[in-house]
């Protein structure tokens, strides 16, 4: 046993090391040192969007052996949905199933300065605004730009970062990551467009999303909406008392679920102190209500 022990330890240490050292050619990483050349070494900047993977030349100059290894070389699966010499079908560029390797550097503040003018509640007057990039996706959520076309119409040339200055917007992330398809929403019943009884939810985005105009990057950006954004109309004397009514309902039944703005999962939690503050009441916990 005493003789086996050192071998066993050595085996347990060395095998994982060996395994981790073996490159997985089925996965492409921009973090690999040799993949950190200028972007246009491999990617061709095409008008009006960059819609395809680099050609074979970009890979084969270094990876010729991997291209001809076995009947189904793993390296092909980076771009091709089928590994076959008779089929050149590729995934959509970029493959939505793979993790993101780049963060996008987008200064909302600067774009707010030059683009986003007033969006009047009456007939549209052709002013650019957040909707130029954030079109409705569902009644609840807005979409985010997914293609280069959304940026190139201003940044194709001369207005930096221009089309061939990839690093102007794309910064290599510390580690590959996935983004949630839908952001978590606290007030899931809110409708952006056409919401409200008089369809008056078509307002100016920054009236509610109060931190957008100060955001110089996307890092740490949250869709902060203070409760006052809602209660200026929804909890006003002589107008509506949507918040106060639900707080009173909790007073009567601590198991009451707030449904006016929230789905059950959120609406069954303790209302935050800010809600009680609006209703000019001291905060309460459901467990303390008899």
């Amino acid at each position, binding site marked *: 046993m005493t003789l086996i022990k050192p071998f066993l330890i050595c085996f347990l240490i060395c095998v994982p090391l060996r395994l981790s050292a073996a490159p997985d050619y089925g996965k492409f990483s921009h973090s690999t040192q040799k993949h950190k050349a200028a972007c246009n070494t491999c990617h061709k900047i095409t*008008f*009006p969007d960059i819609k395809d993977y680099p050609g074979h030349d970009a890979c084969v100059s270094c990876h010729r052996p991997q291209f001809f290894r076995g009947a189904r070389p793993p390296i092909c699966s980076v771009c091709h949905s089928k590994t076959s010499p008779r089929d050149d079908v590729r995934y959509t560029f970029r493959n939505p199933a793979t993790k993101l390797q780049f963060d996008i550097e987008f200064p909302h*503040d600067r774009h*707010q*300065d*030059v*683009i*986003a*003018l*007033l969006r*009047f509640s009456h007939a549209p*007057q*052709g*002013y*650019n605004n957040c909707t130029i990039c954030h079109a409705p996706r569902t009644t609840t959520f807005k979409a985010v730009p997914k293609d280069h076309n959304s940026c*190139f*119409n*201003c940044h*194709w*040339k*001369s*207005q930096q970062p221009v089309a061939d200055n990839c690093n102007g917007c794309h910064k290599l992330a510390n580690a590959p990551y996935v983004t949630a398809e839908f952001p978590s929403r606290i007030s899931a019943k809110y409708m952006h467009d056409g919401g409200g009884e008089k369809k008056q939810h078509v307002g*100016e985005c*920054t*009236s509610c999303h*109060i*931190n957008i*105009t*100060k955001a110089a990057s996307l890092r740490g950006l949250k869709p*902060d909406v*203070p*409760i*006052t954004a809602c209660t200026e109309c929804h909890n006003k004397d002589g107008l509506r008392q949507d918040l106060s009514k639900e707080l009173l309902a909790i007073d009567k039944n601590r198991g009451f679920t707030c449904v006016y703005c929230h789905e059950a999962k959120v609406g069954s939690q303790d209302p935050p102190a*800010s809600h009680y*503050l*609006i209703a000019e009441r001291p905060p309460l916990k459901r467990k303390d209500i008899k």
Partner: protein
Amino acid sequence: MKFVFVAVLLMVTVVLAQEPVAKQTGVLRLRVRVKADDSSPQRGLSRKRFFLIPGTLEQNRALIAAIEQQPLTTRDCYYKQHQASAALIGWLKEGDCESVYCRSIERDSVSGAKAVPEFASAFAASQKEYGNDETALRWLTTNIPADMRDGFYRDRQHALEALIKQGNTIQSVMTDRNGTAYFTDLGPGTYVLSNLIPTELGQTLVTWNCEVQVKAGDLATEKPYLVSNRKDKNVKCVGIEKPMPVCATD
């Protein structure tokens, strides 16, 4: 065994001692209401940036002196100096735009009686470059010379950056259409609220530099901090108005 227990206990104590205490912050909710002249109604000042600088007015005396002494070129003057056409100056003025990006450029601005010469020539270049009218119109700004496109905005940014370097600005926010804006996550203390670059309002330029106290736990739900160019009992920050400077080209 006893030694291990003591060591673990010590480590836990050290870690807990280093745990940061949750920082109490406050919120400043601005409401900016202005009158362009005595006969005009009061309205919310929309789409204007305000800055918050840590410290008292006294501590920021050098910055405030720099704000007051900075040479300023008004929007119309900038475009006149760069030989912009009267049609372009009119198009910008009509929408209170600082650059060509602020509203969509419609077909009647590239041809016909209402055509803006700068847009017409950019459209012609875009047609040649991008192949079809629709894309040419949508990508039109890519063929407008930089000075005409957003040169005024960039000039303003340079002036702002120079001032910000002197004052450790911590945040800037833009007012919405009602003249409301929020500064959030503020540490308690004294700040100077400023627009750094005077705001064009009718025939005057308005500068705001006011001392503001932020307390820990201040919430956006409390009464807004009123900012105006006119004195009133509720107004906390009154701007200083100066007549618009004469443009060298006039």
